[in-house]
């Protein structure tokens, strides 16, 4: 049944439908409404679980780790500084192969302080060994949350569900919440084979000498790569059950004969699709939305780019002094591929900067430019900066030479 729900409220209800045993919670904007809504569901008796209000995000992740290791379906949510404070725990959760789900309400990282949306937080922990799924809208946030609980127990890998802060978390949308029966059919009871149990005592988290560490990393890496299958399978099964799929690893949309592609992650996809429709005079681009950032769907990406002359990678974070993060990975995936498109890489929408429909025209223009843009940040208003801080050579107006 479709109902108007705020993104955070819908995510909280989706979490509750998954019957978590332990939820750990620490407030941070723009994630707070999620844990508030879960707390209310617990207070009203609609969700039976241990709700642990911790004293930091470090402990939020640690409580979830301990709970999952002790056999509980565990959940927490955070954003921005919270994700960074959790960072070492996130690595530990993944390295120990602990299944759990975390919602990241994507937000910029300080300094300067910004409570608004970009993707720097989840990018900062991309190497932690988690599965990272980015959501296009709130319906997908609901569906992906439910799928995440299934994926995590199928893979013993933690899953981070990334939703754009404010843009999704604080926006009311018509949402089709599944029924409890649907979710119960989809999601079997939580069983963790390595759970801490006095009848079968395991030592988890032992020291690994150089003789073993490499093998541990290898098997973890292999497991994250192999998780692609579990992600695709969960999405397929959920589609059969609910009628809604989320695109598996990535979603491609646009004319088959398009020569220009735009690659993005998260909710900006809706803006780009609307703009493409609203601006019929411009070339109609193929829009590729990465849903799974980890595992990185290199093969699916190559297929999605086939036939394109140009790909503009639009991202919401950067690695200062290098390039964009997604852009670098897309270039690596396309390297050596015959007839690979040229990759232009820009960041936009940093720290909540608006991304209007005209963004589409900017990206098309960039795709058509002779000069290759290794990386630049869009919409920099140089005149706001003192002369010595302008670095015009790094702005999109003065890009590097034509390499074609």
């Amino acid at each position: 049944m479709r109902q108007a729900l705020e993104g955070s409220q819908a995510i909280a209800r989706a979490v509750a439908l998954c019957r978590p045993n332990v939820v750990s919670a620490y407030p941070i904007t723009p994630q707070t409404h999620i844990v508030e809504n879960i707390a209310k569901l617990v207070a009203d008796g609609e969700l039976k679980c241990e709700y642990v209000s911790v004293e930091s995000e470090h402990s939020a992740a640690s409580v979830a780790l301990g709970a999952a290791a002790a056999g509980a379906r565990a959940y927490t949510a955070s954003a921005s500084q919270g994700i960074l404070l959790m960072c070492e725990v996130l690595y530990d959760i993944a390295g120990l192969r602990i299944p759990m789900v975390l919602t990241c309400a994507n937000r910029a990282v300080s300094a300067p302080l910004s409570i608004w949306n970009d993707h720097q937080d989840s990018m900062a922990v991309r190497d932690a060994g988690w599965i990272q799924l980015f959501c296009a809208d709130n319906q997908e946030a609901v569906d992906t949350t439910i799928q995440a609980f299934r994926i995590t127990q199928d893979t013993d890998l933690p899953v981070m569900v990334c939703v754009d802060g404010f843009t999704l978390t604080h926006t009311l949308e018509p949402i089709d919440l599944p029924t409890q029966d649907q979710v119960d059919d989809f999601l079997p009871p939580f069983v963790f084979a390595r759970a801490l149990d006095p009848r079968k005592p395991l030592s988890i988290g032992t020291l690994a000498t150089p003789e073993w560490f490499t093998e541990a990393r290898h098997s973890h890496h292999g497991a994250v790569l192999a998780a692609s299958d579990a992600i695709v399978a969960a999405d397929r099964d959920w589609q059969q059950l609910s009628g809604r799929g989320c695109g598996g690893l990535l979603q491609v949309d646009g004319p088959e004969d398009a020569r220009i592609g735009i690659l993005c992650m998260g909710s900006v996809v809706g803006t780009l699709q609307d703009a493409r429709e609203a601006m019929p005079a411009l070339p109609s681009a193929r829009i590729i939305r990465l849903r799974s950032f980890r595992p990185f769907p290199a093969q699916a990406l190559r297929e999605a780019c086939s036939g394109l002359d140009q790909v503009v990678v639009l991202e919401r974070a950067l690695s200062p002094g290098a390039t964009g993060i997604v852009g670098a990975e897309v270039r690596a995936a396309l390297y050596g591929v015959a007839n690979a498109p040229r990759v232009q890489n820009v960041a936009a929408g940093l720290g909540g900067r608006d991304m209007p429909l005209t963004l589409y025209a900017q990206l098309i223009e960039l795709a058509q430019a002779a000069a290759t843009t290794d990386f630049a940040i869009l919409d920099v208003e140089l005149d706001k900066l003192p002369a010595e801080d302008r670095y015009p050579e790094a702005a999109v107006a003065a890009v590097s030479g034509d390499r074609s």
Partner: protein
Amino acid sequence: MSATTEVSVSLAELRENQPRFQGFVGGHRACVGCGQALAARLVTESAGPDVAVANATGCLEVFSTAWPDSAWRVPWLHSLFENAGAIASGMEAAFKARGQSTKVLAFAGDGGTFDIGFQSLSGMIERNHNVLYVCYDNEAYMNTGVQRSSSTPHAASTTTSPAGRERLGKRHMKKDILQIVAAHHMPYAATASVAYPSDLRKKVRRAMEIEGSTFLLVHSPCPLGWRHDGAKSIEVARLAVTTGLVPIIELERGALTGSMPIREQRPVVDYLRAQGRFQHLFADSAEAREELEHIQALADYNIERYSLRGTGADARDTEGADTVSRGGVRWA
């Protein structure tokens, strides 16, 4: 990574044999005379088999495991340095949610308790999770090679508070973690020493009976860091108690409810002289003499504060506790 040990007997059988149950067994890599290894054995055998351990990073974690070996016969999880309190909270919440009676133990050293893990410990006890938190206090970061912690006693020389021409070891006081913990409306917080195993066992069992957060601070010599012969660990630990420097007390909801009386107080120099970390205090200088007087005053203050001076025979005093452990009421 995880290692497994098959246990073929039932939990009920193990419980019946509880005094002899061993949760932490030989084969680990602790140094000769390690107080922490001894204390961990005493705590786990007293706590019994129906437990799960959250272990902070530190010596205990390192010497008890190295894949694929493990000295633990109870379920055991090591996560990180500063989150034992939070990991234990999560484990307890999971057992509670699943209707399981297993008691959670949290093990950490003084670095993981007084310093970097203090916040997660405070959170755990503020929320009153049903966890027995045991701090094995060897008074410095021993695992990284003897650096001062906020538990390091005043004037002790460590690699980051070395004694030299200008300094007489650590300049600051040892943090009074027991009182800080007790200030959280703690049902039960107590100190113990590996030199008094019967007392330690009793306190573990007392804590195990309490539904809620409990805290045990176990004074555990480190021959490497304190610089004494490994064969003298118990003697040194005993002197820490009989001088009054380490008061053995119990606090319930912040009130003093138990203490180990000292029948014959020993001068602090007996304790200090036995350890290399205090040798600079025996230099022929006014400053060194002043420090010795200062430390003696700290011991005297403890004795006054907790009324530790014992008179007459008391089975639980610093002399009697020893007798009891060799006598017939060993498991009392």
